[in-house]
């Protein structure tokens, strides 16, 4: 051998060996530092019905999300946020669930446009904590602040301001979506097909990694609230007529009242209070309500027609017509201050039933629904009624111009049949139920209530041809061609 090649050999070999060893070491460490292994865990929705054993992974870094989403350890997978969907939307029986809660970072905030860019696991509670003191509020808030941005987009949540401001998607400027082939897609209104399928797509188009959300400027942390008591459904619906004066409007409805007072309600409506209306040094100051906790399951039947009737009567009596300033926390989320309130329905859990009915048929439909619930003595501790504004372009969008009724029904042996009775009424009146809360719908009824399901399936097919993203909900309802 010549001298020159030998010299090269001598210098290059040790370098290669060292680099190779380093690479090996790096791999060994990287392997432990990015845990994308799946483990079995019993999961439930917020209604605690059903409970399913799922295979879960919880990535802590962005790149680990893609690894978990594509892992062959599970046949299919669905992303899950804080588990506030009531039914099985974020469950996947015996298959993959991707816990997104650790990816909760704020990426950017542009004060001039009020646009917040955040990872999908960021919770609404966290956003409020950070931005209310600076004078911004969430543009749309569902019934709990313990939801993630990603979950809120996948369900396209609505709030008490839907009649004026529409769904959350109205304020979403951009969605960063991880698709089945590992690509990251930026979805905006320039890509309407994918954007509107991902909005209220129940996580079936991919994993939402981050999104840009336009916040709403506020002057104070108070809501100027007006309480209006109505004597029956007729009066309640009539009172909604003045909704345009209020950004937020909802009616607590006594669904055990019957006969002449069927549908009696307390309307709770309000607007963000202006600075001049609020005393005190810092109008944006707010104190999170003292956390109370439900320590144990209530015994089954603790909430029975008698106890709920008593509660409802008390609540109705305690809310005469009045106007006052209420902090935004108790105004929007009276239940969030009681951690684990879902345990009051006992170990069997409950079904949250929410439907939307078009204006033309809503009075008739609501009457029938309330009569059915009242007659069955199904104790709904919490029932709310509100007006919906326009629908979104989403093929699986829930809201439609009309009224929406939400109630809790304790899980019992006849729960599925009972909700099917309600479904029939809803469908016959041209309405539909909300997938984020559903646990009992069947595929046939789903297709009827969501006539644009094929349009959704086509988009899903193009984004996810192998049907990688599935949930117990999508399998039950055969959404997107899932069998």
């Amino acid at each position, binding site marked *: 051998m010549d001298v020159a090649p030998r010299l090269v050999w001598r210098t290059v070999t040790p370098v290669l060996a060292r680099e190779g060893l380093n690479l090996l070491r790096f791999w060994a*460490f990287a392997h*432990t*530092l990015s845990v994308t292994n799946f*483990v079995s865990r019993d999961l439930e929705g917020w209604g605690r019905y059903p409970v399913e054993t799922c295979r879960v992974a919880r990535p802590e*870094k*962005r790149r680990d999300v893609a690894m978990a989403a594509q892992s062959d350890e599970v046949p299919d997978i669905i992303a899950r946020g804080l588990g506030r969907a009531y039914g099985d939307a974020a469950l996947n029986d015996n298959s993959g669930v991707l816990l997104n809660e650790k990816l909760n*970072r*704020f990426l950017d*905030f542009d004060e001039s446009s009020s646009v917040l860019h955040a990872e999908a696991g960021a919770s609404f509670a966290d956003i409020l904590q950070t931005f209310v003191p600076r004078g911004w509020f969430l543009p749309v808030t569902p019934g709990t602040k313990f939801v993630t941005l990603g979950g809120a987009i996948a369900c396209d949540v609505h709030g008490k301001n839907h009649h004026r401001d529409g769904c959350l998607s109205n304020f979403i400027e951009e969605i960063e979506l991880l698709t089945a082939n590992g690509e990251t897609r930026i979805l905006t209104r320039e890509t309407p097909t994918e954007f509107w399928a991902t909005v209220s797509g129940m996580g079936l188009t991919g994993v939402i990694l981050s999104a840009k959300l336009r916040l709403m400027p506020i002057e104070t942390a108070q809501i100027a609230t007006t309480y209006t008591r109505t004597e029956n459904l007729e009066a309640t619906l009539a009172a909604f007529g003045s909704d345009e004066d209020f950004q937020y409007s909802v009616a607590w409805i006594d669904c055990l009242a019957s006969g002449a007072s069927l549908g009696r309600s307390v309307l709770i409506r309000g607007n963000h209070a202006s600075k001049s209306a609020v005393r005190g040094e810092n109008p944006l100051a707010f104190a999170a309500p003292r956390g109370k906790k439900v320590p144990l399951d209530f015994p089954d039947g603790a909430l029975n027609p008698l106890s709920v009737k008593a509660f409802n009567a008390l609540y109705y009596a305690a809310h005469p017509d009045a106007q006052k300033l209420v902090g935004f926390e108790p105004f929007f989320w009276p239940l969030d201050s009681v951690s684990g309130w879902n345990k009051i329905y006992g170990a069997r859990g409950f079904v949250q039933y929410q439907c939307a009915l078009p204006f033309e048929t809503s009075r008739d439909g609501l009457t029938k629904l309330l009569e059915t619930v009242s007659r069955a003595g199904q104790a709904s501790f919490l029932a709310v009624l509100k007006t919906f504004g326009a629908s979104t372009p989403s093929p699986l969008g829930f809201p439609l111009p009309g009224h929406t009724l939400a109630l809790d029904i304790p899980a019992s042996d006849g729960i599925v049949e009972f909700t099917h009775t309600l479904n029939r009424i809803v469908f016959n009146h041209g309405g539909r139920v909300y997938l984020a809360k559903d646990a009992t719908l069947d595929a046939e009824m789903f297709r009827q209530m969501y006539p644009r399901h094929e349009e959704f399936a086509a988009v899903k097919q193009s984004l996810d041809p192998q049907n990688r993203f599935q949930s117990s909900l999508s399998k039950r309802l055969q959404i997107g061609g899932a069998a």
Partner: protein
Amino acid sequence: MNEKTFGKGCRVLILGATSGIAKSLAREFARHGFDLVLAGRDMDEMQTIAADARVRYGTKSEIVPFSATDFESHPEFWKSCGALDGVLCCFGVMHTQNEAENDWQKAYAMIEVNYSASVSILNIAANEFEARGRGFIAILSSVAGDRGRRSNYIYGSTKAAVSTYAEGLRARLFASGVSMTTIKPGPVDTAMSFGLDKLPLLASPEKVAADIYRGVRRKADVVYTPAPWRFIMAILCAVPSFLWKRAKL
């Protein structure tokens, strides 16, 4: 001259900034007005952590690439960090006992990262802080280092070494006014422990970070987090060896 040594405007270096506890520590120190120097390998992830701190608290952050096991690079790395008020040493690796018993590379990885790398970088930090007479150092050890358990003793022994190193260093630095805090967390709900069943007193990284912040601020010698671990470990440390070796722990 009354120079501020802890609090708003101070600069803290977080080594292994993308580990589960370190992320929460970054938020906690940023919340209290610290500027951050984030050191680790995953640059994208560190950018994200820095962005988060900036949006939440207006934090100034710097990102510096750092490889724990590239010992030769440590002096150069230290210089590139600039002036620092404190160091939080958070990198670490845990393999299961079974893996570490049967695969030397895995056992060695823990020794190299958890112990050798800590000594390498903290020697440098200690020399500088001692010379100028101020600064704080904290290192993540573990309750696993207090006793050797049959189920986790290779990892545990690397943490025992870290604790002993820190104890000696603390004694050395005492006269110069530099604090050395040993952190002994119990199991924390991060990727390191995710999926391991039935962990006693599993703590959230946020809670652990808050405990660590308070401990470092009051220049504590040893911080157990959550606090009951101090009591539990005191009892376990009192068990004589002839009993300990028979215990299935």
